[in-house]
C-alpha cells in the first residue's frame, strides 16, 4: 500500500492514535465528562477553523480571522445593550463584510490573500480599538444571560456549545457538498485556470469564500465573548495558529481543492487532544506555541500537493 493511498485516512488515524496514547497514559482522559468538556472548550476555535477551511480550500489563506474575532468580541459587547439579540446580527454582518472586502481586494485588485487579509486584519484591529476605547469591556451579566444564555447552558449533560458546533458543521457541510456554490469551490480549488475556462464566475466564488471565512470568524468571536462575558481588541489572540493548524492537520492542503469541513472537524479534535495531552504529560504551557508551530510545518509538508506548485516561492 503506497503512502498516497493512506494519505486521505491519515487525519483520523492520527486522532485515534493520539487518543489511545493519551488514554493509556492516563485513563481519566477517556472519561466521557472529560471528553465532552474538552470538546465544548474547543468550539470557538473550531468555528474559526471552519471558516478558515473555505479560504484554504480555494488555495488562499485568511490571516485576518483572529483580528475579525477580536473585533467581534468588542462589537458584541458594545451592541448588546443597544440591540439585544440583534447584536448577533451586527457581529455576523460585520464579519461577512470584512471577509468580502478581503476577497474583493484579493480577486479584483490582485493582492495576494496573505497580504490582503493581513491588511484587513489591521483595519479590524483599529476598529476594535476605536469601539472599545482601548479598554477591556464587560457584558452586563443579567442582559447576557437573558439574550445569549442559551449559547452557554447545557441540556442532557451536553454543553450547548457542542450543539452550536454540530449545527454549523452540518450547515457548512451541506454548503460544501450539496450546493452549486460548494461544487464551484471545489472547481476553483482544484484548478483555477480550468474553472475560468469552464465559464465559472471565479471572482464571485472566491469573494464568497472569504466572506464565509469572515462570517464564521465573527461567529467564533461572538461565542467567545459570550463565554467570557466581555470583549477586548486582544481577547481572541492566540487563535490564529491553532485554527490554521486544525485545517491543515485535518487534511485540507495549503494548495486547496481537497479536504473540507469534516476534515477540519477531525483536525480541530487533534488540536484539542494535543492541547490536553500537554496537560497530562505536564508539558509546560509556554511550549505549546512551539509544538503547534512544528506540527504546522509537518502537516503542510505532508499534505501539500507539489504538482500544483511548479515553483515554490
Amino acid at each position, binding site marked *: 500500500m503506497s503512502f498516497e493511498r493512506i494519505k486521505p485516512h491519515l487525519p483520523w488515524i492520527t486522532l485515534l492514535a493520539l487518543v489511545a496514547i493519551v488514554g493509556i497514559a492516563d485513563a481519566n482522559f477517556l472519561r466521557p465528562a472529560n471528553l465532552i468538556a474538552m470538546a465544548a472548550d474547543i468550539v470557538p476555535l473550531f468555528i474559526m477553523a471552519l471558516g478558515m477551511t473555505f479560504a484554504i480550500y*480555494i*488555495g*488562499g*489563506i485568511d490571516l485576518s480571522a483572529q483580528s475579525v474575532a477580536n473585533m467581534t468580541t468588542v462589537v458584541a459587547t458594545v451592541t448588546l445593550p443597544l440591540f439585544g439579540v440583534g447584536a448577533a446580527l451586527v457581529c455576523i454582518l460585520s464579519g461577512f463584510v470584512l471577509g468580502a472586502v478581503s476577497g474583493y*481586494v*484579493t*480577486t479584483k*485588485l*490582485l*493582492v*495576494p*490573500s*496573505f*497580504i*490582503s487579509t*493581513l*491588511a*484587513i*486584519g*489591521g*483595519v479590524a*484591529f*483599529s*476598529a476594535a*480599538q*476605536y469601539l472599545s476605547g*482601548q479598554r477591556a469591556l464587560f457584558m452586563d451579566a443579567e442582559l447576557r444571560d437573558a439574550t445569549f444564555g442559551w449559547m452557554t447552558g447545557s441540556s442532557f449533560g451536553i454543553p450547548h456549545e457542542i450543539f452550536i458546533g454540530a449545527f454549523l458543521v452540518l450547515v457548512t457541510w451541506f454548503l460544501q457538498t450539496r450546493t452549486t456554490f460548494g461544487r464551484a469551490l471545489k472547481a476553483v480549488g482544484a484548478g*483555477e*485556470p480550468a474553472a*475560468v475556462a469552464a465559464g465559472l464566475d*471565479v471572482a464571485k466564488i472566491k469573494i464568497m469564500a472569504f466572506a464565509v471565512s469572515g462570517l464564521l470568524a465573527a461567529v467564533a468571536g461572538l461565542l467567545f465573548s459570550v463565554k467570557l462575558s466581555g470583549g477586548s481588541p486582544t481577547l481572541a489572540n492566540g487563535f490564529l*495558529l491553532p485554527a490554521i493548524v486544525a485545517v491543515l492537520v485535518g487534511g485540507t492542503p*495549503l494548495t486547496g481543492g481537497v479536504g473540507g469541513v469534516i476534515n477540519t472537524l477531525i483536525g480541530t479534535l487533534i488540536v484539542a487532544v494535543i492541547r490536553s495531552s500537554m496537560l497530562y504529560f505536564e508539558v*509546560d504551557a*509556554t*511550549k*505549546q*506555541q*512551539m*509544538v*503547534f*508551530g*512544528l506540527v*504546522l*510545518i509537518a502537516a*503542510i*509538508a505532508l499534505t*501539500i500537493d*507539489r504538482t500544483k*506548485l511548479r*515553483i*515554490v*516561492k
Partner: protein
Amino acid sequence: MGSVLTRDVLVKWAPLLVLIVLILFFAAMEPRFFSVRNFARIGISSAPALMVAIGVTFIIIMGSIDLSMEGTVSVCAVVFAFAFIAMGGTLASFAWLALPLALLVGAAVGLLNGLVHVKLKIPSFMASLAMGFVGTGFALLLTGGDRIRVEDDLFRGLLTTRWFNFPIMCYVAVAFLLIAWFIQTRTTLGRNFYAVGGGEDLAHASGLNVNKVRILGFTLAGVFYAVGALLAVGRIGIAETATGSNFMFVSITSVVVGGTALWGGIGGVWNTLIGVLIVNVINNGMVVIGLPGYVQDGVLGVLVIAAVVLSTDRKSVTFVK
C-alpha cells in the same frame, strides 16, 4: 509630458513623492512636527524597523516572503540579553561578544527558515509564519515570560549618546543600510536575488543554484533581524518575548509601500528606507497632530493595499491566490 510620465516612472518615484507630501502636510498642520527634535524621534523609531525591513527586502526581491521576523527578533533579543548579562553586563568587558553572538543566532534562525522553505518545499509565507510562531514560543521558553533588563550605560549609549542631535543608533542603522546597499549592488549574491525574482526559470536555466540563493537570502535576512533586535533592545533597555511583536506588519508594510514589488525583481534597500520613513512619519505625525494612535493599523492596512495595487502590472498577472 504624456510619454515621460509613464506608469513605470510614476511607480518609481511615487513613494518619495508620498513621503515629501506627508512631511509637508504634517508640517503645515503642526509646526512642531518640523523640528530636529521630532526628526530625531522619528529616527529612533525608524532605526530598528529599518533593519528588519531591509532583511525582508532581500526576500521580497526574490519573489518570496518572510513572516518570521517577530519570532527571530525576539529570540535574538533574548539570547543577546542573557549572554550579555552572563558575560559581565557591560560593553567594556567580554560581554561585547554577545553582539556578534546575536548576529550568529539571527543567521542560524534564518538558515533554518530557508531550509524548511526550500528542502520541505513549503511556500515561504507559510514556512516562515510557522517558524515565526516557533521562534516566539522559543523566546517565551527561554524567558519564562520575564523581562530582562539591559542597563549598561555604554550599550544604552545607542539611544542616549547623541551626535548632531541624533542618537548613535540612527548612525548604526545608516551604516547597515550602506552595507545592505553594497550587498545588493556589488556582490554576486545581491544580483542573484534579482535574477531569481525577475524570472526563476531563466535563472535556473542559466545555471544558477536557485535553492542555494534562497537559503542564503533567508540567512542574510536573519542577520539583519538580529541587528534590528539589538537596536530594539538598545532603545527600550529591555529584552522580552514581546520585543519582536508588531515588526511583521510594520516591516512588510514598509517594504511594499517603499515600492519593492511583491512579485519580485523590482526595488531595493533605498525603497525600503523611503517606506520605513513613510510608515514612521505617519505614525509620528498622527500623534503630533493629535489623532488617536489606534488609527495607525487601519491606515497602514489601506496603504499597503494601495501600494500593492499600484505596483502590480495587471497585464502580466493572471490570477492570484
